[in-house]
């Protein structure tokens, strides 16, 4: 499960920065069938947590109502240099993780 994160590498202290993350995942609804007519079991990324220097700042619980290759765009106050770590898990128990550094000045 590869993910792409877009966020500023630098920010001034107190600045509200925009974080965008897109993860490659089919987000199978469980309502689809394959070519043989067999049901494709539901498998979605059901949880994503974003931690900033180890502290949770944002958490998303998702269902089959989130489109394939889930995309989330949210905000975080840049208060210290360090890194943002994103962890997620799908219904099959597959986990993914990605991190992005940020330098905070001022």
């Amino acid at each position: 499960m590869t993910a792409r994160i877009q966020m500023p590498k630098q920010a001034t202290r107190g600045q509200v920065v925009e974080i965008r993350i897109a993860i490659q995942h089919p987000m199978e609804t469980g309502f689809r069938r394959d070519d043989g007519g067999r049901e494709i079991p539901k498998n979605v990324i059901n949880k994503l947590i974003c931690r900033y220097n180890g502290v949770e700042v944002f958490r998303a619980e998702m269902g089959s109502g989130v489109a394939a290759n889930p995309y989330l765009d949210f905000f975080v106050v840049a208060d210290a240099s360090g890194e943002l770590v994103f962890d997620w898990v799908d219904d099959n128990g597959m986990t993914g993780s990605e991190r992005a550094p940020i330098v905070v000045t001022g």
Partner: protein
Amino acid sequence: MVKNPERRTFVAWLGALLALPFAPRRALAQSEPVEAMLQKVTGGAAVQSGRVNLDIPVLAENGNSVSLKVSVDSPMSASDFVKSIHLYAEKNPRPNIANFYLNPRVGRAQISTRVRLAGTQRVLAVAALSDGSFWSGTAEVSVTNSSCYDGT
């Protein structure tokens, strides 16, 4: 003038019973109605309308991926912030699209994502605030091609 209240109730029940087979049939049965899901979130507290803005295109050509932006009018300060935002698509077989948990460190109560919508419907967003109040916003979306819930 209600002459015989018991008779009224009986007639009402009879009417409901007769109407039962004609209740709208959904393509797929929902696991749980939205009201019941909301009850779990709010614990029975009143949900006021306002402060929550849902930004979705009025017309979506493809229900498989519809861009959605939800924002809540909140200072996001240490004493006054949005704790969580809950999204529901009332006609989806699983109406609860997503739940987002926030805290003052996000600075702005605004989230964008892309959702699936099984047909033209109303989308509901409910926000839980730190003072214990609940606020909601809705948006009507016309979907030309519904999401692939029917297996196509």
